[in-house]
């Protein structure tokens, strides 16, 4: 029955979110985003998170390019990129990404190249983990959506 499917999917979302909060991957600011979504802006959370992904990937890519350059010395630029990452991550409640970027930034302030390289790897890892989790979340949500639509449109008891 479709109804049962929806319940199960909602349980999946609950579990996924609970886990992300437990792990400290997300914090309460992620919930704040929910408050900003309503009928006039029904896709707000989805949109903001996708914009966050676009921006973050650009920043991480630039950071990698900078650090991979053998003649690299522009730690200030690294700092600027990281300010952006720290800021946007905290705005959407991506706590762990934010925290690892703060550590990364400290390394850049000390002009510590190996520290920066490590910081970059950790940041990339945390970022991708978050992204995968969000994709999973959105995917489950879209399934729920689909099921609800089917129920509403009366696609029967199959």
């Amino acid at each position, binding site marked *: 029955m479709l109804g049962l499917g929806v319940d199960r999917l909602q349980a999946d*979302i*609950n579990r996924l979110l*609970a886990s992300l909060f437990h792990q400290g991957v997300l914090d309460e600011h992620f919930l704040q985003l929910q408050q900003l*979504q309503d009928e006039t802006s029904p*896709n707000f959370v989805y949109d903001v998170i996708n914009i966050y992904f676009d921006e973050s990937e650009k920043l991480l890519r630039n950071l990698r390019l900078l650090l991979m350059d053998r003649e690299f010395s522009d730690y200030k630029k690294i700092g600027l990129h990281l300010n952006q990452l720290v*800021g946007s991550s905290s705005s959407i409640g991506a706590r762990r990404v934010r925290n690892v970027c703060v550590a990364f930034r400290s390394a850049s302030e000390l002009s510590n190249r190996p520290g920066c390289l490590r910081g970059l790897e950790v940041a990339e890892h945390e970022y991708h983990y978050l992204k995968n989790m969000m994709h999973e979340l959105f995917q489950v949500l*879209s399934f729920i959506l*689909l099921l*609800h639509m089917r129920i*509403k449109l009366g696609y029967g008891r199959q």
Partner: protein
Amino acid sequence: MGRDGGVSCLRRAEMNMMSVGGIESTPAPAPAPAPAPAPAPLDLDEVHVLAVDDSLVDRIVIERLLRITSCKVTAVDSGWRALEFLGLDNDKASAQLDRLKVDLIITDYCMPGMTGYELLKKIKESSNFREVPVVIMSSENVLTRIDRCLEEGAQDFLLKPVKLADVKRLRSHLATKDVKLSNGNKRKLPEDSDSVIITPPSPSLTISTESSPPLTISPDSSDSSSSSSPPLSPVEMFSSSPIDNDEDDDVLTSSPEESPIRRQKMRSPGLD
């Protein structure tokens, strides 16, 4: 919220699988896409906020926060753009320049080029806009920075990420305060910014517990296969205060009602 005339530097996100038919609407599966609003002339009665932030994500969030509290918003990505918008970017005061109605300026502190502090100074130096309240936002809780801004005439200092409660508080100040504005001839909105694109009505993907079905999280759902720590009901998580309280040392929890720093030098009495 009503119609937004607010022009902003908002880029539209990709909408791939989420452009599904409107579930809230009538049985007809295909919703008519809402047309993008034409930029409307500023209404004298509405609060107009100029938001300045170099981060796109933050610009979007602050814009939404302001719109939800019934403000018109113009969001720009730098101090220079802000000055340009205000007509302060050259030294000659143009007599023909239509006066702009701006009720509040809210700016990020850390921006490349011109910082929020520098922008604050320039605004306070201008004859047209020095009375406009300026609020500074920063993710760093540095007392010297806060003091410096307040001394320079900032109305308030908000820690990022900015919360809805913070913005509501600002808004209530604007509603009751007697703000002396520059003369309110209506001025055309700048055309070089992207206009806001309203997405077509689509099903809400909210996972909030308060909204109507279909996507509320069922309080009954429980699951045994989670981690070893006692499973917290996700519904509790969504409705109650944060579980995880270990804030970093460099950032104070931003709680507007309790922060003494924010109360400092407020010209009107606190209203909440």
